[in-house]
């Protein structure tokens, strides 16, 4: 709302007269506050990744450290040809896409409902946020034991009342079981972001459209949806970043069994249990490559956010 008051460039003095030493000094003084954070990030995140990259080219089992040797791309060949590992790549994609799309759609519907005025709206929003605030491991335990349990879980309990079947959710539809719990956790997150987008809409524009005789659907299709685009993209981006990396739900609900092992779980298992450092690293690098695909999409979103920010002045 106060966007117009922000000037795009706050320190023009630094940008002019660069060649003079005093100006150079001042440029460094400007940069100085940035350096601790920058150096910290490089040391803690980039260096380990470089190490992972190096290890991924070695045949290295932690139980036989003396047998460590350079093998080139063998680990990658192994990861890509191993049926289990290939499956986990596929599982990761399926899990991420399903959860992000379903929770985004549900989040949009809930946000549209919550954007309207009705009795107890604040309370309903509070109820809806709750799943996102339950610690992920706790949420996964809740689904595994309290809801899915075939003998005394709530789901089958409710089905019992209406005389429905009593399925064994986790062994029957394992991936769907994990996905449902994640959709439950991430829908509120999507809803919050989209709701924020809805409430930043210009009410006058909508009013004008309605005066011109636009129908509800037309207003939604031509005004609301375009305005929401970057919020939908932001939700999809952040959701993907976290769900691609999901470990808690897979680890807790199925322990990676029954074809639900995603890449993060596989990486964890191959070095934590199988002690295959080289293979785990190669799988880890593949997760990164997968993330780059998402990141390419993400950067587009981010630049669109930037463009608006820079144009604000």
């Amino acid at each position, binding site marked *: 709302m*106060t966007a117009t008051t*922000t000037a795009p460039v*706050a320190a023009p003095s*630094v940008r002019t007269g660069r060649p003079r030493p005093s100006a150079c000094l001042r440029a460094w003084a*400007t940069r*100085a*506050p940035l350096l*601790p*954070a*920058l150096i*910290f*990030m490089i040391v803690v*995140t*980039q*260096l*380990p*990744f470089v*190490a*992972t990259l190096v290890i991924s080219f070695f045949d290295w089992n932690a139980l036989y450290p003396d047998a460590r040797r350079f093998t080139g791309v063998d680990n990658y060949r192994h990861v890509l040809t191993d049926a289990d590992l290939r499956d986990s790549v596929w599982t990761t994609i399926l899990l991420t896409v399903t959860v992000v799309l379903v929770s985004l759609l549900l989040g949009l519907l*809930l946000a549209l*409902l919550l954007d*309207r*005025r*009705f009795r107890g709206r604040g309370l309903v929003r509070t109820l*809806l*946020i*709750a799943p996102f605030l*339950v*610690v992920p*491991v*706790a949420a996964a*335990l*809740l689904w*595994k*034991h*309290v*809801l899915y349990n075939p003998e*005394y879980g*709530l789901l*089958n309990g409710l089905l*019992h009342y209406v005389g429905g079947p009593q399925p064994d959710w986790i062994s029957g539809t394992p991936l769907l079981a994990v996905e449902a719990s994640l959709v*439950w956790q991430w*829908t509120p997150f999507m809803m*919050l972001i989209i709701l924020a987008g809805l409430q930043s809409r210009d*009410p006058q524009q909508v009013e004008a459209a309605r005066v011109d005789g636009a129908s509800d659907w037309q*207003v939604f299709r031509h005004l609301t949806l375009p305005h929401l685009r970057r919020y939908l993209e932001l939700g999809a981006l952040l959701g993907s970043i976290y769900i691609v*990396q999901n*470990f*808690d739900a897979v*680890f807790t609900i199925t*322990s990676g069994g029954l074809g639900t092992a995603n890449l*993060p779980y596989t990486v964890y298992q191959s070095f934590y249990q199988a002690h295959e450092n080289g293979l785990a*690293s190669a*799988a*880890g690098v593949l997760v990164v490559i997968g*993330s780059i695909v*998402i*990141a390419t999409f*993400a950067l587009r979103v*981010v630049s669109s956010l930037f463009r608006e920010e820079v144009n604000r002045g």
Partner: protein
Amino acid sequence: MSGTAVRVRRVPRKGAGPGLVAWLAGIVFFLPVAWMALTSFHSEKDAATNPPSFGAALTLDGYREFFGAGGGAGPWPSLINSTVASVASTLLVLLLALPAAYALSIRRVRKWTDVLFFFLSTKMLPAVAGLLPIYLFAKNAGLLDNIWLLVVLYTSMNLPIAVWMMQSFLAEVPVAVIEAARVDGARLPTVLARVIAPMALPGIAATALICFIFSWNELLFARVLTGVVAETAPVFLTGFITSQGLFLAKVCAASLVISLPVLAAGFAAQDKLVQGLSLGAVK
């Protein structure tokens, strides 16, 4: 759909239908949490019945069992560890992110967009990509099972988001106000403390809240890098994975207690959460 699908803020229109649907959705989403809370107050016998017992007698046995779990100190050390890791890393994040955000928003450094891109891009690097080297380093440096290692890692996990959020919050401070204070002879520390800090405080609080939540929830690093001494609350919870619902009330009590700090903070600061989660893209 009635003719009220779009609400114009200044002319609120009421429709009972959508409100009803929203209530229904709210109840469906909240039901698992409510059921977890109710089950935590049941005896183990009542918790494990089919069909579920709604009106069974309430008891604190689940909580007693949980706090006595594992003998000795029970879950307390893990709760304390989680508090230390979350609070300390949140403080460290703020300490690093605030000056960085200042340089990226108010005293804009050259190519500030590139720098922000770099921060955000580290977030696209999945945690598993650096897990093994970090584990090997910790093992060789004798830092395994050390809570301060988690503090450093959680800081790196949350710093990019914090820098991003904070720069957009600081960019909201009107330059004219800052300039005016400078013209009046205020020096940088005064400007920071008197002008910028008060205006950016809600944003800083939102950032801190989100960093706290993500640190408190983290499992993978904690699971791999801690053991007996530095175990965090989520790791403690993983002890219940194989209990196969034998101690349902205890599992529910444990889940609820460990989620409580996040639930309380999140409920109390819903609006800030919205602001923060949209990374300041919402003004």
